[in-house]
């Protein structure tokens, strides 16, 4: 079947199998930041934003994004021009292995879109569906709070 959707700001019109998982489609399109950690919706490594809301792409089939906007980490910033949230993850030491990082950054992005001044508790709740086995979540939470401060200071684009 034909699928039309927007991926990181670029329209896509392509053939998909009706049962193809969104995770597989996105990786097929080169969005390798979308990670498979469990395939059952439990770890959050495959998180992407659909119309601004965090979803697990392993639990969606591709046709569900028909006509919608999908944002993956590739659409947020790049190595040469990182988004402030990506920079905050670097500065806070929030990245160890980096496998959960794309999902973590995207759920944090969703949080900070709607909340400029999150409490530590808000942050803990926002990342609760994303598992990290390296960091104990300490520096990930620090990174989100740092990014929030930068946002309040007008340093976001």
């Amino acid at each position: 079947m034909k699928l039309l959707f927007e991926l990181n700001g670029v329209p896509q019109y392509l053939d998909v199998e009706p049962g193809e998982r969104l995770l597989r489609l996105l990786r097929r399109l080169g969005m390798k930041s979308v990670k498979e950690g469990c395939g059952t919706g439990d770890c959050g490594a495959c998180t992407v934003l659909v119309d601004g809301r965090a979803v697990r792409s392993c639990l969606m089939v591709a046709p569900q994004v028909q006509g919608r906007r999908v944002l993956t980490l590739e659409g947020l910033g790049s190595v040469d021009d990182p988004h402030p949230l990506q920079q905050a993850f670097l500065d806070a030491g929030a990245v160890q292995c980096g496998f959960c990082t794309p999902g973590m950054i995207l759920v944090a992005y969703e949080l900070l879109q709607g909340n400029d001044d999150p409490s530590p508790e808000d942050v803990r709740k926002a990342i609760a569906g994303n598992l990290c086995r390296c960091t104990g979540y300490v520096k990930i939470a620090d990174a989100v709070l740092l990014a929030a401060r930068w946002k309040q200071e007008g340093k976001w684009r």
Partner: protein
Amino acid sequence: MAVETRHRGAVGQSVTKVDGPSLVAGKPVFTLDHDVPGALVGKILPSPHAHAAIVSIDTAEAEAVPGVRAILHHGNVPRVPYTTAGQGWPEPSPYDTVLFDRKVRFVGDRVAAVAAETEEAAEEALRKIRVEYKVLPAVLSPEEALADGAPVIHDEPDAEGIYDAKHNIVAAVDIPVGDVASALAEAHVTAEATCEIPYSQHAAIEPHGVIAYFDEAGRLVLRTSTQVPFHVRRIVARVVGLDPARIRVIKPRIGGGFGSKQEILLEPVAALLALRTGRPVRMAYSREEVFIASRTRHPMRVAVKLGAGKDGVLQAIDMEVLSNTGAYGAHALTVLSNVGSKTLPLYNKAPHLRFRGKAVYTNLPVAGAYRGYGATQGYFALEVAMDRLAEALGMDPIELRKRNHIRVGETSPIFEKIGEGREGTAQVVRSCALADCLRIGAERIGWKENRGRRREDGPWVHGLGMACAMQGSGITGVDMAAATLVMQDDGSFRLLVGATDLGTGSDTILAQIAAQELGVPVDRVLVYSSDTDFTPFDTGAYASSTTYVSGNAVLRAAQSVHRQILDVAAAALGERPEVLELAEGAVASRKTGRRLTLGEIGHRATYVVDQRQIAATASFTCPESPPPFAAFFCEVAVDRETGVVRVERFVVAADCGVAIHPKAAEGQLEGAILQGIGHALCEEMLFAPSGRCVNAGFFDYKLPSSLDTPRIEAILVPSEEPTGPWGAKSISEIGINGPLPAISNAIYDAVGVRLTRAPFTPERVLLALRAAGK
């Protein structure tokens, strides 16, 4: 908290991780992010039985599935006994594994493998392989394994290195020092604890994966999520019968390991499928396969008896271990040995010691290396017993530790008696800030004010607990790391290391170690690691070795390059090297003040006069293994009505020598503490009577989420290890040793019951409260 160091420069700075920018940008840097055109999908058929003989395998129907290109099973694969454990030489784990056997030994054991054009075809083929099994009685606990007449799990005649296969004993140790029995009998006071740890899983968020393909010259390339690329090359070559020179192993970015990737699992299967088909093959474990078919922590029962004088000084420590290695003996002897070797030296005042134990086979998933590597199990029992001893003496638990812990200039006979599956190496402790760790941690948690108060808050009762631990930094007499450092014509550097960064930050730390010596910022050192074609040898990332062992190799290479730079500059400036100084990207003469930048020196050496490559390769073996030390403190709240335990705060004060990268060091502690809290409160693989794991997934096997995580406060307490690179020793494992005993001791402080079987689930806590009439 940042550590202060007297070094200026790259060391001691939390610089941006060298791989950080690509990781936060989501670049395709992990194993399976690499698309190899035309790759087949490889899949494994797991055993449905815990113990069975394979009577026949019929693959005709499976081979007829369109797109199926190869099927491997015991009938068409050479039989080569080996161990999946990626360890140094001589390999201490038994050769009790073959790629495909005529017998299966646990639910999830490898029966056959398929390569097909698509995942769907591979799965369909797996369903169509007809296997006739003769089911055998299964052994589902170490006690059953040791019972008279128990089924023999490894009855194959070609296995090597099993201690007593007929009785399912993989390994046994018995190491006495002095006379423990008499010392215990004569002790003023004794205390004991028997603690049990169940099956638990590393649960790195990246599942194991590998891509096997052929390069332009037809050599086999394995791009794999491994902690041990050089062991992968050696073992795969032997198992698939290929000249090692025909194999290249590349470790890209790895999504966590914690020991689970110190194991050669998918690589030989993918290699053989690629060789049979002449096609690239990609394989990945599903999360369920990671749980049942990768590796786990060794479940253990550890019994500790302590005897002490009136003053609390230990006279005797008796430690006895029963370890369950599951269906194969990967790391069985070495993890068992480590239970004693990494714990008993901590309390070196005791003159009488005995360490004994057995590791036995069962028809359950295979245990292997897991962060802590036996020390975690040992400290659980030792530190609960120490808490009991303090109580029996009426002494503060911190005071008891202070009277017994090892100090600078001291040794323990255990260092020499127990090594990595053989004798160890005598060594003296040259750095130890444990006394500071105890003081600083106790202040931070408010030990004096809050312990023993049993503060109540509705049904919740609060308590405080503590524990101590040490670990090592590499394996003496076994580990070897090498590094090659090359100065480029522009005055920047390339650092080639066999060391394996699993997300720990070791590429960054090794760059810092070189940058410090060379007087340049870290971004002038380009690191390339873990590629058996291009980087020198390294035993791999395990045993808390990389910062110390690989770091020392890097430092030696950098020192040699430093000297070569001075020689070139001396010739250019017409001065003696002794009056020259390398700092801030240039060589300057103390005599004349004349200066040459590294760019000028690199250009001169490469193109102008007396042309040469400024470069050095250095290696480091591990004559001693300096222990890091840590003191752990926690506050828990126990709900007397439901049995729920909440960790409210966790403080760890750790001495890793000089922290090369403080944030990375803290991160190692924070992550290890949370894994330890998981062990203590929620993590346990559960098995049906058939031997099938019933919670092989993140929905049923509970990992701590951010909402289950207390305030974890990691404090780096400085010391300076004279044998370490820039004063550093290890940090990666030690943090996991503290939470089990500290939380158990805190529960006792709160509600007066001892939890000795992990995890401390509400059910177990309630049962303990009922049993104690509370």
